[in-house]
């Protein structure tokens, strides 16, 4: 295994002043004999939004699932706030401040919107604070407030995605993991969902965004990693990647 310093210098950590909240080193994920993620190394600094982009099957979601401990890593290390989290059971991560917004609108369809939000605070017991956070989420997503008692399954796809984000925020995370928030949504809803994500990020939430829609992801994030067949092939500031001719050709359809 490479020493941390080497890994970080490769990610030009020197350029940023803030400390990394999440350091992933040599992470590997395998399904049976097939390696989906082949030893990738990256980090997310406190307060920044980092995007992980790439084509279908590049290993982005597998990476995120391994971070959220929904999948077992085949190797490597994941250090969050200075602690190794590779061996932890998934339910403990929420208590540590990592919240995942699962791929494909993972809401509880037969619970009301209000109940969905309260499930996000499942690990908390501070009732007054939870109520305040519910108000905060409703402030962020006014459309949900109007329909607080409606069943989540009756919302449109975009609204469900927003609810899933709101529910993740209810655990008061320090690190938000977003898995393909644009997936299967109408373009207008994608815009709205990304506005919400940007608002949350601007308020200082550390976010790792996994996204197939490279253009949008690069527009909202500060740095990005490009994944190809299980490996990180390119990394830079998002603005530079947006201008990079190679990226433009491969991912932005130009």
């Amino acid at each position: 295994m490479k020493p941390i310093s080497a890994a970080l210098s490769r990610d030009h950590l020197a350029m940023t002043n803030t400390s990394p909240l999440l350091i992933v080193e040599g992470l590997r994920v395998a399904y049976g004999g097939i390696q989906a993620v082949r030893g990738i190394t990256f980090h997310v600094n406190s307060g920044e939004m980092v995007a992980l982009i790439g084509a279908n099957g590049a290993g982005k979601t597998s990476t995120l699932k391994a971070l959220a401990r929904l999948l077992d890593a085949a190797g490597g290390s994941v250090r969050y706030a200075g602690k190794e989290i590779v061996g932890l059971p998934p339910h403990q991560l929420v208590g540590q401040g990592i919240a995942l917004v699962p791929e494909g609108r993972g809401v509880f369809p037969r619970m009301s919107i209000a109940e969905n939000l309260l499930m996000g605070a499942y690990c908390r017991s501070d009732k007054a604070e939870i109520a305040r956070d519910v108000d905060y989420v409703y402030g962020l997503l006014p459309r949900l407030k109007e329909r607080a008692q409606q069943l989540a399954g009756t919302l449109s796809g975009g609204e469900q995605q927003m609810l899933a984000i709101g529910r993740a925020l209810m655990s008061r995370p320090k690190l938000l993991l977003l898995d393909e928030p644009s997936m299967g949504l109408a373009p207008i809803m994608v815009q709205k969902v990304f506005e919400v994500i940007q608002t949350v990020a601007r308020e200082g939430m550390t976010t790792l965004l996994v996204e197939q829609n490279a253009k949008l992801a690069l527009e909202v994030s500060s740095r990005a990693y490009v994944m190809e067949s299980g490996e990180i092939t390119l990394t830079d500031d998002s603005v530079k990647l947006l201008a990079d001719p190679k990226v433009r050709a491969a991912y932005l359809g130009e």
Partner: protein
Amino acid sequence: MTLFESLRHNRRAAIGAMLFLGILLAVLPFTVGSMMGNSWLRILDFALLYIMLALGLNIVVGFAGLLDLGYIAFYAVGAYFYALLASPHFGLHLPVWLIIPGGAMLAGLFGIILGAPTLRLRGDYLAIVTLGFGEIVRIFMNNLNAPINITNGPQGISGIDPINMGGVTLAKPIEFVGITIPSLHAYYYLFLGLALLIVFVSIRLEDSRIGRAWVAIREDEIAAKACGINTRNIKLLAFAMGASFGGVAGGLFAGFQGFVSPESFSLMESVMVLCMVVLGGMGNIPGVILGGILLTLLPEAFRHGAGPVQMALFGKILLDPEALRMLAFGLALIVVMLYRPAGLWPSSTRRREFKGEGA
């Protein structure tokens, strides 16, 4: 149904309704006993046992959404536990207050034994494994008479001690402040008391953190994990809780019946209990109770009524009442599922969902 919901908001009406229901349940065995005879009293006692079973299965199927086709195995575990520890078979005669809780715990342990290997399974796959589990338990009961005779095989265990509480046996009429309570009545009150306890526990569980976690797992397991729910433990807890209710019912069954054999724990029984849950209204406690009552009483009514009605109409029995009973039962299931897919008395959420209403 709306009446029931309005009671939640009106305290006085709720107390009145509870009082009325209490008196009704208290005098029920005397009215049924004098008007319809002892066979119907026995059916009433069985209805209470089935309510306990249905409420137990409701935790697994209704709350946690884990399809279990072998639930009757836990009933069998409770029943055999009682039979082995309170019968001449081993010459053991342990007191009821030890055996019933012990049977509940053992059944709960069996629930975990079933749950642990099936944690990753859902839907059809889980149904097949649980079906196999139910059959394994039954076949064990059938064959554990050699080399050491534990269960007495297909002959079953007879001469089981009747339930005996504080020196008072429920097998004989009990003199109580000048009133004579016949045996079947006494069993009724005991079963009613335990059924009410199970109803109470179910209601408390539904409103608890654990209950919400079960529903979350039923709705979306990955999202449940993402909310920080320990899905493994919570699922095992559902299996254990559901199974322990079955174990209590099983112990009561053994003491009541005085005889257990593997025949009583066939796949058909599991299916019947599942039908009670689904037909009544999955996940809704009053619905499940209704399902338990209807599916115990109606087939019996058919069994007792089909013959005489045919005799009166046609002067002879055209169709065997037993065959007719299954036919009517199947038809009733199809009709209910077509016209009330969420069950006869669904929870308000499910009713909304099936009607496709918003708020």
